[in-house]
């Protein structure tokens, strides 16, 4: 009898597998530009529509800016998250990933990393455009930290639920239905923190919502690691 502890091949390194999956996604995206371009155009359209429909004075704009920006990024990110596993499923390559002798968590982290990078690229381009259109300076390190943490939390829960939704028939509809309610705490905390920072609030006031985002990120990571194996299988 073969000893299951004596693998035929050296065990694939966890982080090497994570990097390999992310490399594959980034290389493919660099060549076809499907996901990032769709998210970018969508984001641009949303902030333009808001800009023209909300003809507000400067102070009113400052009050709604954080909310408009987060709504834009959340909807755009959902577009990208929808393709995270759906693209693999559509081309039939999801089985190839599941057949590889790697920890399933490596698949989760690889997909999380590539999707997070896609969303960050869109944010890096859209934030300066938003800043000009809404006449609000957003180049505040604390604001950028909140943007990073909030995006991370949303991407973690989005990647997890995208793995669940990929096996359903109406997955494009299913993902937002599953995702938005679960993401409410991290989005609300991120919007609150962003609004306070853009209004010039001190650390004492923004610390609460930022801590909430961090705690939510940690909880989501833990849930994702514990449940991903079961969600990705049929």
């Amino acid at each position: 009898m073969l000893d299951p502890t004596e693998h035929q091949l050296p065990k694939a390194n966890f982080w090497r597998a994570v990097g390999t999956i992310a490399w594959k996604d980034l290389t493919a995206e660099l060549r076809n530009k499907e996901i990032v371009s769709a998210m970018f155009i969508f984001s641009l359209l949303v902030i333009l529509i808001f800009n023209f429909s909300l003809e507000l004075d400067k102070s009113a704009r400052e009050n709604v800016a954080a909310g408009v920006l987060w709504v834009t990024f959340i909807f755009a990110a959902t577009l990208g998250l929808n393709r995270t596993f759906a693209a693999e499923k559509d081309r039939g390559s999801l089985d190839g990933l599941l057949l590889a002798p790697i920890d399933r968590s490596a698949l989760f982290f690889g997909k999380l990393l590539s999707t997070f990078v896609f969303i960050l690229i869109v944010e890096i381009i859209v934030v300066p455009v938003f800043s000009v259109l809404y006449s609000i300076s957003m180049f505040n390190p604390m604001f950028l930290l909140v943007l990073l943490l909030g995006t991370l939390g949303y991407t973690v829960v989005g990647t997890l639920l995208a793995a669940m939704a990929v096996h359903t028939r109406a997955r494009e509809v299913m993902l937002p239905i599953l995702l938005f309610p679960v993401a409410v705490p991290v989005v609300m905390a991120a919007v609150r923190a962003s609004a306070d920072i853009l209004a010039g609030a001190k650390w004492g006031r923004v610390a609460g919502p930022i801590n909430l985002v961090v705690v939510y990120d940690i909880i989501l990571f833990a849930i994702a690691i514990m449940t991903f194996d079961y969600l990705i299988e049929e």
Partner: protein
Amino acid sequence: MIQIRSLSKSFGMKPVLNNIDLSIEPGEFVALLGANGSGKTTLLRIVATLSRPNSGEVQVGRLSLPTHAYAVRQLVGVVSHQPLLYGELTAEENLRFYARMYGLGAAEARITTVLAQVNLEQRQHDLVRTFSRGMQQLLAIARATLHQPKVLLFDEPHTGLDQDAAKMLDDVLRSVAAVGRTVLMTTHDLARGLELSDRVAILSRGKIAFEAHSSTLTPTTFTDKYYEIIHA
């Protein structure tokens, strides 16, 4: 090499596999035939660790599933009617991706070897989306044999291929099976299944309805038997 005992699988209320028993010896090439929806692909997916049975026992290399799924994945290579490749990557990049996923050392040498085995060395730097369906299936075989698996599972590998490409695929299938690998192949093509395999099995209504050594059958007797079972 593959032992399946009392295996049952259903999707919701619909039973697909019903108390299946099948044993495949090391180095044996078994062709599994059956009508659409007979459960061929489901059986293959269970052996490949991609699906779990509702009941029964599956062992690959005497490793039980799903307990030793991780070790079994190292033993198994899968070629389905979908090539499991990325069109935006070159042939070489696709193989390098899978080599890393399988933790292969000396991957470049192995990639060169498998590309040569399927005669795709000249196209190694081309994007896979520019490949014909036949070339993609050949590259899929290179992908599946990259980690030198002891067991190869082919799920209707000839689907969508023209006659020339199918013949070329047959030659490659024979060569990869000739080195002592255990092969389980599902197919709709009775003549091809009989010709390539050591043993044929017919799956009908979730059960193995017929098994025989290929050498004991002629294409005519096998075809007659097949339709007798399918239309029973």
